[in-house]
């Protein structure tokens, strides 16, 4: 059979469905052995590969409205900001999947990539990863925890991809089928707000959603060709995203 063209895994997040329950964040942390926040950690020193932000419409009560914005590595497909800057090739875009891979074991913790990432989707291990005594045994065997002093980020659940590929290989298949590989956040979302799949495959639901009315990407003009799309029917959301920075978000 002819070699299938490389996949471009991505997702569309429906902001009108996201209830901001945080299940994706929890599922992500458990799947990827992300440690709980250190007691001294602040909202800016914790590690959340998947992080639900809140975007308000900036109008006062009772007209105020908000959406929840799950932010994860946007898997930039072009000019990938973090890849070019890493001094020692610890970040690379996997040609076969389009996934931006971070190799914590190669990283020296210079944090240049964090400065480079406009989506703030990269996190630094400010502390040694620590779980309450005895809770280490609940760690996911497919993912190695990261050491202090290195940068990490979402890799669309590497462990799961490998598991799916291993399974396919065991069954003598070259390719994994659509449903076989689904990141933890997608699986966990109670509102089914996240659609995941291969954007390169025009027939896939995700590709169609990405093209659909109301779909957009963050900082599209940077030309990073990110593979995480958002969609919303609400005009003010598009307005707020377009107007970009400039006004303090209302939420303290």
């Amino acid at each position, binding site marked *: 059979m002819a070699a299938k063209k490389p996949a471009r895994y991505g997702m569309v997040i429906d902001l009108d469905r996201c209830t901001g329950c945080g299940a994706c964040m929890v599922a992500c942390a458990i799947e990827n052995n992300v440690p709980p926040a250190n007691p001294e950690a602040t909202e800016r020193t914790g590690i959340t590969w998947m992080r639900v932000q809140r*975007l308000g419409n900036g109008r006062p009560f009772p007209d105020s409205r908000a959406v929840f914005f799950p932010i994860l590595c946007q898997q930039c497909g072009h000019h990938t900001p973090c890849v070019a800057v890493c001094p020692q090739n610890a970040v690379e875009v996997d040609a076969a999947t389009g996934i931006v891979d971070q190799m914590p074991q190669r990283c020296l913790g210079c944090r240049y990539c964090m400065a480079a990432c406009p989506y703030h989707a990269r996190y630094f291990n400010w502390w040694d990863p620590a779980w309450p005594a005895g809770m280490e045994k609940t760690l996911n065997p497919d993912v190695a925890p990261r050491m202090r002093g290195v940068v990490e980020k979402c890799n669309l659940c590497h462990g799961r991809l490998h598991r799916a590929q291993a399974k396919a290989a065991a069954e003598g298949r070259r390719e994994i089928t659509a449903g076989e590989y689904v990141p933890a956040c997608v699986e966990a979302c109670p509102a089914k707000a996240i659609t995941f799949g291969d954007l390169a495959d025009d027939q896939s639901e995700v590709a169609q959603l990405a093209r659909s009315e109301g779909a957009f990407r963050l900082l599209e003009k940077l030309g990073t060709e990110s593979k995480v799309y958002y969609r919303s029917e609400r005009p003010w959301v598009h307005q707020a995203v377009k107007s970009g920075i400039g006004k303090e978000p209302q939420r303290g």
Partner: protein
Amino acid sequence: MDRSYIARGLDRCATRRFLMWLLPWALLLAFGVYSAGLCLVKGLNQTNMDNRFAFGLWIFLDLTVIALGAGAFFTGFLVYILRMHELKAVINSAVVIGLVCYSGAVTVLMVDVGQPLRAWFTFWHPNVHSMLTEVTFCITCYLTVLAIEYLPLLLKNRRLRQVPSFLVFEFELHRVMYVLAGVGTFLSFFHQGSLGGLYGVLRGRPFAFREALGVWPSTFFLFVLSAAAVGPSFVLLTTWLVEKIAGHQLVERPVMQKLGRLSGVLLIVYVLLKAIDTLVWMNRTTPAEGFSPQQFYGFEPFGVWILFAEIVVFGLLPAVILLDARRRRSQAWLLTAAGFACAGVALNRFVMTIQTLALPTLPFDRFLSYWPSWQEVGTFLAVVAYGVLVYSLSYRYLILFPQERDLKAR
């Protein structure tokens, strides 16, 4: 009792007095080493940096210090390549300053990275497209070069030169100095530049991102230029400072004025290009990325004033003063202008590092504030103390200002 180490005919204070002078700096160094130790042992959670403010005080000061240290390569370039022999009067001092600045900066960088033990991976698995790789390679090479340039000064010490092999080696080293100066210039050009590129390439930070000229963003060249411009100014300032502390003249005034003029010329060119660059950035780069420049200056305290201060107050103004021969002749004007020039470059580095990170990029971001922790400050103070110590010792036991003895004789 350390007389026999001090070159004949140089006025140096009594040993006890010298030790008294060293003591506070030594204490400062000890404190700094302690805070740096905390950062290394307990990790970078000791700092106030965070995922959003990934770079802080250290990177800002590294950039500044390296810019100021540019005097070493630039003076070397002028003396050995362009054969401006009158500048020999300060070349030794410049080399020591360079050595201090670079070694200090590199040390702080070692503390700044999360896994210092892996720093050498940058050499082993280099990503040649990363500005940081360029910086790392060039700075380490240049630091080596500086060390070699420093060696003759050291071997020329009155006691050491009694050792015949030292004497001969110093003699030979001195003869190849122009090669090292050339290499140093080459390396400095690239790392000063790539330090600018460091931020200029950040497509994701529209405030810092600049159009590329060839493989480098415009900031690459602006940094080279500003560093070269401010190098002599800093040498000038330090020389003056040392004269004040030592209590006697070390360099002939014309030399100082020459330094000032060089600074002035380069500075005016820099200011010009900087202004053009800013205009291009405002009207082309930023809009293309979907932002409007006003947005960036909408967050207090970083208003438009900072741009004005950087380009006019600390750029144009000192340049004009330094270019005016009459003003140059007045010590006060000369030094003020030099001071302003240095401040200007420091401000530029501040804007590039701190303001860039403080600004939001996404609609739900906040404008961030950051204040260094005492560990961060301490670590930096260690570098300052280290610098003062190395310079003081060099000044006492080595011949940093060849004109000193003659000036004394007059």
